[in-house]
């Protein structure tokens, strides 16, 4: 059997170049092995891929072992080689051509699919840097940036300008307004604080005073007149002292500077002031001044330094020696008692201060107002001289007119002159005489009551001439008492907060006080035992000005009036 093998290669222009050789034998091996007659040097071809042999009168090609062939495009282990048939062995195409004379068969062999270039191959498979992977810097950067700007710029601004949007966004776990809030609101502002624009009315404009004053209309100012207020504080904003978004603690400035910026050298800044310079409580606070009533008007007070002992006396027109009342086992209305501070000074509902001491509640059990104690436990009413006189006149008139058998009351002649009502009617004359007696008796007892025995014990009593009566007639006038509600009204003192201490620990001099002129308010040194200034001290409470003082002073014109006033001079 003779076979013409035509090796077909392609030149650069793609034109086929044919090299033919004749082989002869019984059968021919086809493969990449060098011993093969049809040598196909490619790794994709088996060492011995197929065999060409003559059988059944035809020339055939058969695959060896597991090798595969593509015969006219179909996998087939065997093929009959007739001119025109095409068998693919690996990347090679074996085309059967019409044999030339002297040959049984012509086989054109062409490498259809050469191996790719190794370097280009490995490069195309390998990714040597992260930049060649799907990782990206640009995509996440832009995505995140746009997302953040949408969520935290666009959404809150749209939310602010579209009320319908607000209803929708309110359901989010963090609303757009909350996402902008720098911190928790003071509890008083929380109710409406979910809407930023309630306080921040205008974009890019700081919170306006008028917004604050819209609710806090009547909050008083610091100065006694609006003009002075404007002069001293014009240009100061509400928010200068009240910063929100700092919780409840932050809403009010607590630093010393709040007050001390001016009060440190107030005398220079404001020469008309009667206040002493003050700054830190521990180092630069003046001694306390007592506010004492001097009358005659209810608010006619003077402020006197505590160390000015000669003038720092109370003139309340009440006689009250604390020492006598605080002795052990004193005689009371129902036997022996020992009084304590609380016997008379009952805390008010808030616990911060005390209920006023009232005669009818606190004094009368011991200090009864009996005017005829030997005969009756009846007492004159407390408070009105006229009522006192009327009560007594009625008492004595009743005795005389009803012929009450009372031995102890000296009724003199009159008793016998007036018949017993049971024995017959009395005449007008007799009645007049009886009433005149009662009046005279009452006046006589009154002198004793007012000036010697009862009223005078606690009160100042003066005789006042009566113009309408007989010459020389008079009545009594009990000077109205004016006990101080507070000796230090310019500070806040919470007794309840100090309840762990005994009264006498601060009010020590009260036990030995012999007169109501003594004022037993502790000096500043007593406070400083526990209260430091702004700087911490061991075992003391840091105390800045607002621990005791407030800026907004009750009774002063409201802050709201500042709005129309000119700003402060430089």
């Amino acid at each position: 059997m003779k076979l013409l093998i035509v090796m077909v290669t392609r030149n650069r222009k793609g034109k086929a170049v044919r090299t033919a050789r004749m082989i002869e034998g019984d059968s021919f091996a086809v493969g990449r092995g060098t011993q093969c007659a049809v040598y196909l040097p490619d790794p994709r071809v088996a060492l011995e891929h197929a065999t060409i042999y003559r059988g059944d009168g035809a020339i055939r090609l058969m695959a060896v072992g597991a090798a595969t062939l593509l015969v006219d495009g179909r996998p087939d282990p065997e093929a009959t080689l007739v001119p025109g048939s095409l068998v693919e062995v690996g990347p090679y195409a074996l085309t059967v051509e019409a044999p030339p004379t002297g040959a049984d068969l012509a086989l054109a062999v062409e490498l259809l699919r050469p191996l790719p270039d190794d370097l280009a191959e490995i490069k195309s498979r390998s990714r040597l840097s992260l930049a060649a992977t799907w990782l990206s810097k640009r995509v996440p950067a832009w995505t995140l940036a746009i997302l953040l700007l949408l969520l935290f710029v666009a959404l809150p601004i749209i939310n602010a300008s579209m009320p319908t949007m607000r209803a929708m966004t309110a359901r989010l776990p963090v609303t757009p307004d909350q996402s902008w809030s720098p911190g928790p609101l003071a509890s008083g502002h929380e109710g409406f604080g979910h809407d930023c624009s309630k306080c921040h009315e205008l974009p890019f404009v700081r919170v306006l005073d008028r917004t604050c004053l819209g609710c806090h209309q009547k909050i008083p100012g610091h100065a006694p007149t609006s003009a002075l207020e404007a002069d001293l504080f014009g240009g100061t904003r509400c928010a200068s002292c009240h910063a929100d978004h700092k919780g409840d603690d932050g809403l009010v400035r607590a630093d010393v500077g709040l007050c001390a910026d001016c009060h440190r050298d107030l005398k220079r800044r404001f020469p008309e002031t009667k206040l002493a310079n003050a700054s830190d409580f521990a180092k630069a606070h003046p001694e306390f001044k007592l506010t004492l009533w001097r009358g005659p008007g209810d608010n006619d007070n003077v402020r006197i330094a505590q160390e000015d002992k000669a003038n720092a006396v109370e003139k309340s027109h009440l006689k009250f020696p604390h020492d006598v009342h605080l002795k052990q086992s004193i005689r009371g209305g129902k036997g022996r008692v020992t009084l304590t501070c609380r016997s008379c000074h009952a805390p008010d509902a808030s616990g911060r201060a005390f209920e006023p001491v009232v005669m009818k509640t606190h004094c009368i059990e011991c200090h009864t107002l009996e005017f005829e104690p030997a005969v009756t436990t009846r007492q004159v009413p407390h408070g009105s001289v006229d009522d006192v006189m009327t009560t007594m006149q009625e008492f004595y008139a009743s005795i005389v007119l009803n012929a009450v058998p009372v031995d102890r009351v000296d009724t003199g002649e009159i008793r016998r002159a007036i018949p017993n009502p049971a024995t017959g009617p009395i005449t007008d004359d007799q009645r007049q005489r009886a009433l005149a007696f009662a009046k005279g008796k009452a006046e006589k007892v009154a002198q004793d009551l007012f000036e010697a025995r009862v009223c005078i014990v606690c009160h100042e009593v003066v005789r006042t001439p009566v113009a309408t009566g007989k010459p020389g007639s008079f009545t009594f006038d009990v000077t109205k008492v004016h006990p101080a509600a507070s000796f230090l009204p310019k500070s806040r003192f919470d007794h309840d907060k100090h309840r762990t201490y005994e009264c006498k620990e601060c009010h020590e001099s009260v036990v030995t006080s012999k007169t109501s002129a003594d004022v037993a308010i502790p000096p500043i040194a007593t406070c400083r035992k526990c209260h430091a200034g702004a700087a911490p001290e061991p075992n003391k409470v840091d105390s800045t000005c607002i621990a005791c003082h407030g800026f907004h002073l009750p009774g002063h014109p409201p802050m709201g009036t500042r709005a129309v006033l000119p700003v402060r001079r430089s």
Partner: protein
Amino acid sequence: MRHQSLLAYARYRWAKIAVVVVGAAIAAYAFDRSPHGHYGGSPLGYTLGTIGALLIVWLTWFGVRKRRYSSTSSTLLGWLSAHVYLGVSLIVIATLHAAFEVGWNVHTLTYVLMLAVILSGFYGVYAYLRYPSGITDVLGDDTQESLLLKISDLDRQMRALALSLPDAVNKLVLASAQETRIGGGFRAQLSGRDRNCPTTAAVTGLQAVGRTLRGHEARISQQLYALMVRKQELVGRARRAVKLKARLDIWLYIHVPLTIALLAALGAHIVSVFYYW
């Protein structure tokens, strides 16, 4: 020129500057007596906030500056040194600006993004100090390109040798040449390994097949085996180089996007503060 680390640049000039900046910020914070205490809106808070914002913008500018090869404003190493130290100082400045307050809001989000950027930067410094020398050690006189060239050259040689050897051998060689990959996805790059590496399989396979061969084939097979082992070594080196390079670069895929996100958040933070002033 003596090699200088980015940390020790100019005798720690930027470290010293950063220490001074941080010290000044802490001192100012400690002595600040703002009326309402410490917070972002106090005079000191605004000052620290402004410094912080300018620093963030300037630090971001480094990303632009490092691409300007023609720039003459200091060396890139100097810029990087400043970038690192001033970036670290930003932690203190921003924390004091925020006065240690946090909440579920854009302000804290900005702060957290900033911390994330700086923390990823810490890794960056570590990577820049550690990996370049490793890459040099692995590559030696080679480059990634020359390693691939050598590998493909070996492939060609091995294919030619394998032609006369049994099909099993030939298959191993072909698979190694056609399927070996260097690097790949970011996980493959970072691990520096390929569990199903055809070259490793070829080394093991050639050893097994080689024992069954005799005479001329055995000799060829031995040559082939030696070449395959050499290829395996080259592939390993290339993969290690890719791994180290990936570890050197990976943090930038966090650092850069978060930086841009931080700029957006910073803008939102500033707008929000002054919109509702």
